[in-house]
């Protein structure tokens, strides 16, 4: 019940981003359709650009959402409620995840539509393939949010130079992830290879890859998100 109420509040807070952001994504994706003088490599890059931008921009957005709670003092209202750390962290995460999911899904739908119109076919990419691509894509921005959230919370736990602590923490986490990745690949080596179809200017290109790296990244991000739930309870106001 409490989780639901907090989540509704977070989604309401983000409704402008959800609505206007989605409209902007749609508006942008229409560009490759209107600009008929563009060659295939250009319109394809133009159409896929939002997916890359969103993955990075959402990290800044997630940190900014947390920072705004402190800047507007509303964090005192939230912390005075009888809630646990995971209520705050998970609801914020879900709200940001909703933004990434809606933007990226819209982008992918448009990409498929653009291909159908510009190439005359979807080059064999089925909706199921697209859904698979979407889920794989989400395995980058969502776990990455764990890195940024934990770094921000760690900075808040520090009594001094909060920003510096956050930045140092983020670099340390990335370094740790890189150092541990060999071990991570081995840990998930049992996962079967994935086959993914990618739309290129020449049509469809199918390839396979080992998902162990992505799985380890997701696990690392998840652990950091869970750690943030505990760490946020150590923050002093």
């Amino acid at each position, binding site marked *: *019940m*409490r989780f639901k*109420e907090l989540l509704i*509040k977070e989604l*309401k*807070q983000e409704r402008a981003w959800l609505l206007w952001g989605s409209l902007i994504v749609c508006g942008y994706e229409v560009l490759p359709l209107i600009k008929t003088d563009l060659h295939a490599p250009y319109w394809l890059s133009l159409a896929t650009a939002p997916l890359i931008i969103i993955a990075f921009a959402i990290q800044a957005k997630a940190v900014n959402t947390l920072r705004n709670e402190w800047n*507007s*003092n*509303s*964090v*005192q*209202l939230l*912390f*005075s*409620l*009888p*809630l*646990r750390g995971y209520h705050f962290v998970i609801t914020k995460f879900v709200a940001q995840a909703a933004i990434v999911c809606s933007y990226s899904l819209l982008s992918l739908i448009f990409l498929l539509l653009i291909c159908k119109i510009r190439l005359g076919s979807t080059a064999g990419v089925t909706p199921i393939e697209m859904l698979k691509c979407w889920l794989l894509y989400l395995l980058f921005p969502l776990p990455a949010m764990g890195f940024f959230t934990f770094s921000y919370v760690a900075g808040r736990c520090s009594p001094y130079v909060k920003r510096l602590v956050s930045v140092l923490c983020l670099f340390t986490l990335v370094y740790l992830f890189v150092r541990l990745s060999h071990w991570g690949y081995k840990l998930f080596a049992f996962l079967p290879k994935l086959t993914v179809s990618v739309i290129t200017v020449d049509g469809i290109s199918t390839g396979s890859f080992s998902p162990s790296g992505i799985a380890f990244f997701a696990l690392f991000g998840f652990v950091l998100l869970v750690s943030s739930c505990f760490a946020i309870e150590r923050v*002093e*106001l």
Partner: protein
Amino acid sequence: MGLLGPNGSGKTTFMKLVLGFLRPQHGNVTVFGERPSPAIKEKIAYVSELDTLYPWMKVGEIVHFTSKFYKDWDNSKSSELLDFMGLDPYKKIGALSKGMRTRVRIALALSRRADLVLLDDPFSGIDLLSREKIQDGLIQTYRYKEQSVIISTHIVKEAEPLFDEVAFLNEGEIILQGNADDLREKHKKTITDLYRDILR
């Protein structure tokens, strides 16, 4: 109870310690025999000295939002308080004056049947009318012998009639504490004059 002291005397720190917003550097804090925790917050209603409300929410929305987190929330009391404080549930918090926003925060705290109400400097920086409304609201909703209300303030003169007990704080220490009537009688002074003498 009145927690009286100049700026920086430790009034807000005391309240933050009770709520668990801060951890003590020495010793322990216990509230109702327990360490501050999320469970304890169910028994405490807190009004911060800061503007903590979301400006994008409507008054009715923040009331609805807050009500969902407390078992002791009293809907009829909440409606009465909104009426009494002259608050329009359809008005956006961002469009309200500082005094009206303070009224909203006070109404949120008093709409509950909390065992302990902590009001951190509720009269600071707001107009006389709002201060009077808040005082009247406090008197109307106070449940004698059932709940404790701790008000921290440095505007002693207007708040004096509200206090049964007072504690004078300076530089993080309680320098005088006791029943307000006893202190008046013993020192032959009002609490306001005592405040002036002690903290001068």
